[in-house]
């Protein structure tokens, strides 16, 4: 018996009972739609967290000072002055392929003044690499050069918040002189606004200046608050971290017995921590949706059982006019698969459209992975076979004589 004939037979049988076929499908439709919508929401939020973290520089490596408990006294990280410019030199000396950017960070709070306006903000002393590491971009003007660093040049770059507060009349800040802790700085560039960070911090409330200028003219210190580096790729950040640790340990002359007096953190760690929380949520939601898909499958099994009992005479007739056991088996199996696959298709459409509706009305980020569609579709087909087989087997084992006389 050809498969086309079987499909036709199964299709005609379903057509005779449209409402029941639809109600059976409903379980699958809701299950699949729920799985797809849940995965879209979960993946969407995960993706949005990832992308906003990557915006801070996904390959970024942060080196912070850390107490190695001299004399058993634990000190707060920022009060420790273990990071020095020598550490930068040591890392530079590595000429590692895994590191493509390195910048010291020296920052201090203070009042920025321009004419009659003033604004409390932070000045951060960095090297030109810093912009690449933090994925900052210039909107206007130019970046300070290595020469500016060497010559303690009093130049700076401003973030949007600072500009808004010091130049409320909207005049062009480039070339103007602002004062920070009474030191005049010439504005040579304007940064592209980045908005708030994930932690609610205003990323545009910054002034960037050469680190030498900040160290020498403002803070009058020779230690660094932190060092920022960037790995060549996200994958090489682990190797870069190891190399940096080794270089700093050497430059700090730490013996093998001593613990690090600094810590190296990668953005990748942070991303994985946060996205694992989000993954857990996705798994949870998908599991709940998966349960409803399973219940849909049981619905199919139930209906197929009822259908086999109800259509016992039909089965007897089919057998008496020449249907073999396997023809009957295939017919009922195909009916179950047709129900589950049709339900699956409708479910996919419904799931995708409800995900878009959610993102449209609630403004939630969504991401529909093809894999979620393929997986739920395959699960559907398997559900059809799995839950359809037993009733179909029962039908095919009927004795035609008994089946024909069944009341």
């Amino acid at each position, binding site marked *: *018996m*050809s498969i*086309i*004939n079987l499909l*036709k*037979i199964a299709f*005609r049988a379903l057509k*005779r*009972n449209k409402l029941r076929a639809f109600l059976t499908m409903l379980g699958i439709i809701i299950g699949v739609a729920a799985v797809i919508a849940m995965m879209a929401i979960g993946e969407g939020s995960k993706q949005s967290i990832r992308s906003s973290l990557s915006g801070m520089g996904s390959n970024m490596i942060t080196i912070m000072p850390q107490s190695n408990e001299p004399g058993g006294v634990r000190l707060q990280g920022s009060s420790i002055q273990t990071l020095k410019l020598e550490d930068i030199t040591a890392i530079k000396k590595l000429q590692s392929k895994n590191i493509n950017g390195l910048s010291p960070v020296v920052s201090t709070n203070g009042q920025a003044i321009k004419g009659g306006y003033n604004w409390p903000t932070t000045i951060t002393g960095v090297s030109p690499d810093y912009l690449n590491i933090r994925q900052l971009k210039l909107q206007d003007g130019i970046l300070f050069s290595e020469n500016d660093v060497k010559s303690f040049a009093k130049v700076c770059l401003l973030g949007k918040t600072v500009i808004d507060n010091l130049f409320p009349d909207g005049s062009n800040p480039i070339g103007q002189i602002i004062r920070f802790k009474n030191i005049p700085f010439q504005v040579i560039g304007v940064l592209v606004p980045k908005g708030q960070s994930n932690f609610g911090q205003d990323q545009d409330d910054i002034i960037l200046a050469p680190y030498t200028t900040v160290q020498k003219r403002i803070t009058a210190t020779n230690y660094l608050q932190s060092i920022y580096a960037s790995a060549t790729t996200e994958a090489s950040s682990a190797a870069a971290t190891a190399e940096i640790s080794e270089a700093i340990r050497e430059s700090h002359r730490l013996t093998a017995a001593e613990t690090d007096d600094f810590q190296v953190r990668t953005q990748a760690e942070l991303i994985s921590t946060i996205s694992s929380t989000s993954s857990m949520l996705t798994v949870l939601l998908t599991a709940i949706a998966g349960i409803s898909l399973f219940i849909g499958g049981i619905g199919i099994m139930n209906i197929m059982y009822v259908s086999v009992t109800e259509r016992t*005479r*039909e089965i*007897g*007739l*089919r*057998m*008496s*006019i*020449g*249907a*073999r*056991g*396997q*023809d009957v088996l295939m017919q009922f199996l195909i009916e179950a698969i047709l129900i589950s696959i049709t339900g699956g298709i409708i479910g996919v459409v419904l799931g995708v459209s409800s995900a878009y509706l959610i993102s449209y009305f609630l403004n939630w980020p969504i991401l529909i992975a093809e894999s979620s569609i393929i997986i739920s579709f395959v699960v559907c087909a398997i559900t059809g076979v799995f839950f359809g087989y037993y009733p179909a087997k029962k039908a095919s084992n009927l004795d*035609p*004589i008994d089946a*024909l006389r069944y009341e």
Partner: protein
Amino acid sequence: MEQKILDIHDLKREFVMGDQTVRALKGITFDIKAGEFITIMGSSGSGKTTLLNILGCLDKPTEGSYLLDGVDVKGLNRDELAGLRNTKIGFVFQAYNLLPRTSALENVELPLFYNKTITAEERKERAIKSLESVKLAERFDHTPSQLSGGQQQRVAIARALVNHPVMILADEATGNLDTRTSYEIMALMQELNAEGKTIVFVTHEPDIAAFSTRTIMLRDGKIQKDSINQNQRSAKEALANLPESDDY
């Protein structure tokens, strides 16, 4: 010598029920030649149904031989029996057994779906021809609920004819019908028989048996009488002689 469609020799069928053995058929021997119109009669418990099941290849004899169109049924498995039913036998049941909510045409097509060698066009063509031969060509798109009992049984007969069987096997085919409609069905059967179809008609009504060419009487699992019907009644004449219906 006419071709033997059916050759039964010393056929026995026993059922084991718990520790008892019920002997439904106790050794039956007869044959049927092409073109015969046979009625098998008998009261309930005579083994009529058991014999019908065996003739229809739904059941196998415990002992004895049954050759259908030259094929020994005894050695066949379930699937081979199904194949035999599909190509050699046309069933007509008392309760019509049409698929509900399915057009007459699709009902008639049904047996051909289980025959791989027949294409979709051929299937439809043969189904239409079959419906024409039972004079229902006009109603091929009606579902069973839109047809009268007699018309439903004619659809069932068309379904039995569609696979060009060597034998039509009718099981109390007029049992659910009134006298007039029964005669109409018998007239159709006689017409088909006149065209050369072999018909085996199981009934318990002597009235119906009179339309056949030969009657086999069963009693307690044995053949009580096997007689050629000398004066076969014409169903058409019987129909004409029926008093006008006073329904209207």
